[in-house]
């Protein structure tokens, strides 16, 4: 057996994903996941995280839950994936119902909407940080940089639907990344 790093306890997986889920206000959640799973815990490499993120975005399902399943699977297999999925959804499940119950009262709180807007803006900062890290690692050459730019313009600026863009960009990008002289097809 090759040397393997110590197993991450299921309890740690639950705690991390519960915290991420319960406090994931205003988008930018995958940015936070990147920060904790890659930066602080060192659970997986930046490359592996980005590959999972791209898979999670191409596959159906919310990015957050797909990333929880992907990271949980990397750490502890199917059980880890199930724990991460339940953990990341548990907080939002109760909180979204609580907010629905309190909504009529909450919108009367002074500055409620402004505070929400500010949280969303700061959460975008986390997304920008993750994108910058990813670009510095994976897009240093011309071809990947052009792919990233093309996807950004098509989805972010032109607002084309995701499925056809991903179906063109992903195979093209993978083909361009194929090692020269490979026979392992």
């Amino acid at each position, binding site marked *: 057996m090759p040397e393997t790093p110590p197993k991450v306890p299921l309890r740690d997986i639950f705690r991390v994903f519960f915290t991420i*889920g319960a406090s994931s206000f205003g988008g930018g959640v995958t940015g936070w996941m990147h920060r904790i799973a890659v930066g602080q815990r060192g659970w997986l490499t930046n490359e592996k995280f980005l590959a999972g993120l791209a898979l999670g975005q191409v596959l159906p399902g919310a990015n957050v839950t797909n990333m929880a399943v992907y990271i949980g699977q990397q750490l502890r297999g199917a059980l880890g994936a199930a724990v991460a999925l339940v953990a990341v959804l548990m907080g939002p499940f109760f909180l979204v119902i609580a907010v629905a119950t309190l909504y009529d009262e909450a919108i009367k709180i002074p500055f409620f909407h*402004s505070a929400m807007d500010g949280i969303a803006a700061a959460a*975008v900062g986390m997304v920008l940080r993750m994108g910058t890290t990813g670009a510095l690692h994976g897009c240093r050459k011309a071809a990947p940089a052009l792919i990233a730019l093309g996807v950004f313009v098509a989805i972010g600026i032109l607002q084309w639907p995701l499925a056809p863009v991903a179906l063109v*960009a992903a195979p093209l990008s993978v083909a361009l990344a194929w090692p020269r002289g490979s026979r392992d097809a």
Partner: protein
Amino acid sequence: MRDNPLLGLTVILVPFSLLSIGGGPSIFAPLQREVVDVMQWLTAREFIDLFSIARVAPGPGAMLATLIGWKIAGWAGALVATLALFGPASILTLMVARVYDRYRGRDWHTALEAGLAPVAVGLIFAGAISIIRLSGNSMLTWAAAVGAGAVLTLRPKLHPFVVLFAGAALFVVAEIAGFWPIAAP
């Protein structure tokens, strides 16, 4: 199906789960059609309110399904809707992640990781733009987002909550000073 909401929710949401490429936003339109027009479980007004609540509360925007289930069939409805929307997509992601993991080190696997990374980077920045656009596309939002990204880069150990709270505080101050909210474009 209209008489048995739990069965109806399952029949509607399981296929949507497998079609939700890119997460919740890709199924909001067909979901509204089924829930409001076809089944007439909710009025259009109720649907829109639930939609904005799901955006304000933590968790993926697809938690809208949880709220729809809760509204039409209480706690059991919320649970069934959550499982039906997040279950099938998560199982698919788990299966793909397992296959993906088994072939680590092969050329095509390396190409897949290297090739998907720039696609993910493009999607990450597109996601950032779409959140900024939803929150009014103002100079203040941009400045807060870029500022938050810079702070998070310079202070890797800083808890994201601090940055989110600072964002909320900034926008509350902006409202007091009369700079926020800007008129909707």
